[in-house]
């Protein structure tokens, strides 16, 4: 079931990770670059992307990291998860970053590089372009 956790309307390019993301400690706050060598987005920047990933993991302080990257203009435009964890939900809520969850099936079909319009006021929030 699609859930709207933080609403908004934004257009952008998908950056997808099959690994969960620990925002605290693995995302460089100044650049938005993933610094964990074991992560499949290692050395990629999440800035201005529509970031698709299974869920957040790790320390709850990661919510402030999301708030920080938003303040530093290095945050994603929106986030899409399979499962919304508390760290990502509240971090996005405060940073005003749209956040939705999608079904496993839709998660499988969505790919890096796709251009989408995310509109949480629409019955179907993801419009593929």
């Amino acid at each position: 079931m699609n859930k709207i956790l933080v609403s908004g309307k934004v257009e952008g390019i998908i950056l997808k990770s099959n690994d969960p993301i620990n925002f605290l400690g693995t995302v460089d706050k100044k650049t938005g670059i993933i610094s964990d060598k074991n992560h499949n987005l290692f050395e990629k920047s999440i800035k201005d992307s529509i970031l698709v990933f299974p869920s957040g993991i790790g320390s709850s302080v990661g919510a402030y990291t999301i708030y920080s990257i938003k303040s530093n203009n290095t945050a994603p435009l929106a986030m899409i998860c399979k499962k919304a964890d508390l760290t990502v939900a509240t971090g996005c809520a405060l940073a005003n970053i749209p956040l939705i969850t999608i079904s496993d099936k839709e998660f499988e079909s969505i790919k890096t590089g796709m251009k989408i319009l995310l509109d949480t006021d629409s019955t179907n929030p993801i419009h593929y372009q």
Partner: protein
Amino acid sequence: MESTHKYYNCNNDNLPLELTREEESALKGEQGEIMQMAYRILVATGEATDAEKLIPIEWAHLSGVNYNTIGDAGEEFLSSISKNARVKVKTTLNPMGFDIDNVSNYKLDENFISKQLSIRNSYETMGVIPSFSCIPYEIFDIPQNGTQVAFAESNAAIHANSYDNLKTNKESAFSALASAIIGKSPYSSLRKEDTPNVTIQMKVKNPNELTYGMLGFYAGKVGDTSVNISGLGEMDQRQCKAMCGGMGTSGTCAKFNFVEGDPNTEKIDFDEKEMQNVHDELNTSEKGDLITLGSPQLGLDEISDLTAKLKGRSFEKRCMVFLPRTVKEQAQKIGYITELERAGCEILSDCCTCLTPLICKDDVDAVTTNSIKGAFYLKNSNGVGVNLKSLKEIVEDETR
């Protein structure tokens, strides 16, 4: 805080969270901006966790204290809300970046110190108890069985749910703060009955605290909100804390159930091979330039045990010992601190290994620790090498 943001949308016919009229009014901003912000956070949290209502809590424990982690964004945010926000329930606090008593011995700049003190001041202004500890379960009295609390520190949430008969979600820094301000928290996941669909069978013989830390780290990767663990023998507090710290680092899981699980539960072995995988992921150095003990911070029993294990021996390299201030004061009265300082330990209260600004890769290539949680953050955040050893090995190899 901008308030134009909507947390409900046109799909709100599936809205699982029902608010009372008073809660609705607060969400609309009729009780001021702070309450509105706090309710928005709880509504987002409730949506994420399929809560149907908000329920009262008696104790909140906040993370998001260390300037090293929350940065200027966090400092400014706290400074701004502390003008009006006040906590409604007993609220305790995670460690900060340094111990003010000896901060001059470390290379921290003035900016760090003043920003950290501003954060401390903001929390105190809001009415938070400045405990600066990640082990609230060890230094405060535990309320009666089944009490609803809101603990943000992951190891503390896991400990509260698994060992202390309390009920908490694995809160975020924001949801715990919002819960402290409102005195309520979403009624979701771990506050209700939770039946894990996976049981991890402990197969490693003669485990020490490092083994339990790796078991926790593994369990956090495997489990979802909670996990069954079978095959555990008697565990001491150090081992319990290591397991909670390990699990909190690797996943979203926030409870161990110490049962076999019903026959339909998937069974997974934690054996020597799985343990080696975790070890290989986190152990990146053959030896360390310095030793850290504490992540989670050490309690009085562990300090007593460390003093006894040293038996007059001294560390041959720097050894940083992290503990809560209240434990340091008790340990001072008993004489443990004098003995540990004699052995060359640097005693640090109010802070912890996890995300410490006191260890810098310019000065240190690798750190020896018995903490899986510490290892993860030293490696990924401080960017230093990690050498894993149990406390017994540390005392044997690194003292004389």
